[in-house]
């Protein structure tokens, strides 16, 4: 990850003794089940980690005295994550959520040492008997943004501000592009990856770049509202992610993807308490209430709102899938036949962009 932080920095200075991560403890009850969370960013990032933290709090509130939950924030996606996860397992946490793609191998490594502890890795695709993966189908909401952009873009060029080329982001890009193309077949999606999940200044610079190159809609797949502020200033439009970001850009922010993690966290904590927990790949979405969109901006025309609502409704009842063939990649090769739906492993490990994506 970008940004040197306390832990990695001290390590580089050879003072690892100081690096014991700070584990935020909540009250200890009689014998409540202890749940641990590993967070990528600060809980105040207003985006990804903020949403997980909200899910954690809602889980604790919903399950009353049955669970306690601790978290460690600002954990790098490198080897330094291993001792953090191990500390949580050692200190009696029976269920540990590692909430970013880059903790995949570290989670599996620690899981081997603690067969009795259940691990849940967010956005990954590797499993073990005690390691499940989970994710939200954010790309479902991303399709709404693509549809809005496709219907409203005047320049015919729209932007996607991404972080890293990981399946979750690739899905978002493709969903955005395909939904936009369903409204305007000739639309171009310019893609910039900033090699970081959280770097407001670089997010801002990248959004400026996209705007300067003619994008009049920019969707953000990084964690701060920086890009939306650029949209507001440049009088173009954008979308928030993780939480409703309207207050940062009252005119520019048309809607936001809302990550709702609490239904999943409640269900999985209950499964551990009941002894019914099983490994697997749990991928919830609009249907389960895990992905929602924030209220539309008032400026949005009625027909556009209706098109967005139709997509959300289609996801909920299963009648719509943005990844319905034909899907053609950037080189022009057909990857999915007409009428078929991209599902399972093909979707979870996707590493190619659809035609019309530049970058």
């Amino acid at each position, binding site marked *: 990850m970008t940004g040197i932080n306390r832990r*990695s920095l001290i390590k580089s200075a050879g003072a690892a003794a100081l690096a014991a991560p700070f584990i935020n403890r909540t009250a200890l009850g009689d014998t409540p089940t202890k749940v641990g969370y590993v967070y990528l*960013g600060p809980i105040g990032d207003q985006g990804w980690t903020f949403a997980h933290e909200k899910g954690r709090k809602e889980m604790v509130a919903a399950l009353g005295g049955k669970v306690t939950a601790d978290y460690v924030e*600002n954990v790098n996606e490198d080897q330094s994550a291993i001792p953090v996860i191990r500390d949580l397992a050692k200190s009696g946490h029976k269920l540990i959520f590692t909430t970013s793609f880059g903790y995949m191998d570290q989670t599996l490594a620690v899981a081997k040492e603690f067969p009795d502890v259940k691990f849940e890795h967010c956005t990954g695709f590797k499993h073990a008997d005690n390691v499940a993966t989970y994710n939200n189908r954010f790309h479902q909401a991303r399709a709404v943004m693509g549809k809005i952009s496709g219907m409203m873009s005047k320049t015919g060029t729209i932007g996607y501000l991404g972080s890293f080329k990981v399946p979750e982001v690739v899905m978002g890009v493709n969903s955005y592009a395909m939904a936009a193309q369903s409204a305007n077949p000739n639309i171009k999606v310019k893609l910039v990856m900033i*090699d*970081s999940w959280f770097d407001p*200044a670089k997010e*801002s610079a990248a959004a400026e770049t996209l705007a300067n*190159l003619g994008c009049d809609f920019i969707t953000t797949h990084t964690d701060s*509202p920086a890009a939306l502020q650029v949209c507001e200033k440049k009088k173009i439009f954008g979308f928030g992610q993780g939480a409703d970001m309207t207050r940062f850009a009252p005119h520019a922010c048309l809607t936001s993807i809302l990550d709702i993690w609490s239904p999943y966290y409640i269900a999985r904590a209950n499964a551990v308490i009941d002894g019914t927990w099983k490994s697997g790949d749990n991928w919830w979405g609009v249907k389960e209430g895990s992905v929602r969109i924030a209220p539309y901006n008032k400026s949005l025309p009625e027909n556009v709102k209706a098109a967005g609502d139709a997509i959300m409704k289609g996801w909920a009842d299963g009648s719509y899938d943005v990844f319905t063939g034909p899907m053609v990649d950037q080189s022009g090769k057909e990857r999915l036949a007409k009428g078929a739906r991209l599902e399972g492993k093909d979707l979870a490990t996707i590493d190619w962009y659809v035609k019309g994506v530049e970058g």
Partner: protein
Amino acid sequence: MNLDLVIAAILTVVNITTPILLAATGELVVEKSGVLNLGIEGMMLCGAIAGFAITFTCSDPELGDSYAWLATAAPWLGVAAAAAAGALSSLLFGFMALTLGANQVASGLALVIFGTGISSLVGTSFVGIAIQPFDSVFPDSLAGDPFWRLIFGHSPLVYFAFVMVGAVAWFLNRTRAGLVLRAVGENDHSAHSIGYSVIGVRYLAVMFGGAMAGIAGAYFSMVITPLWAERMTAGRGWIALALVVFSGWRAGRLLGGAYFFGLFMTLELYAKASGFSFLPSQFWASMPYLMAVIVLAVMSARTRGGSEAPACLGKPFIPDA
């Protein structure tokens, strides 16, 4: 490539460069006095939250019309608060490294941890709100003009950064006080023996560096993204630190180096948006770490001679009783 696009790109370059330049200019003075303060990132975060908090509080519409003047002055007060917060936080380092003679590398790292922590703590109540950006103060006919915005379309802090580079160069090379500061950095015991207060000079330098880092932090929270988010400086303090070393402790090269970095980063973004990339994605991710390693390596190699580093850089000064 048309002129509009070039000018727009230059504005992005300026936005990336200015905070690094501000912080590096401050650090240059600190290092010239013989002190290595690695805590730039921490001081920047202190400045970022202080600048944001004061600007937001002073421009709060609930204060009423009688405080309209306060709202007008809000961004300036914010910058002043950022400078004060940066200088104040640097005193923590100053006390450990100068008064107590502690290891400067360790004290600087402690300052990073402290600044990150306290800014997060203070910032909790400022998360999720936005302020008006501290933009150009020139009339819209100039600041908004497609061409003249190149010169007039910047935040006042951009001009401030240029002025400060020049002022620091002049101060270090052309003034008596600058000579004293360099003497303290090159040979602390000689400076001490002819009656200069080594610790006093170094305290002033460290506070100046802190104030500049604080203003650099305010550039993030008041200009680039007028909001507060934890750790929003995302490692730029380390870039600034490395820049001082790469510039060979010269203000002119510092200016050039900072703009080279900004240009480099901007070009890469344009390349990516146009469908290609000339750097592996891991490059930027590893950049701050790489910088820290290089700085420390250069520091430890300097005894071999031929280095432009101030001779006493990083060595604690303990006056003979």
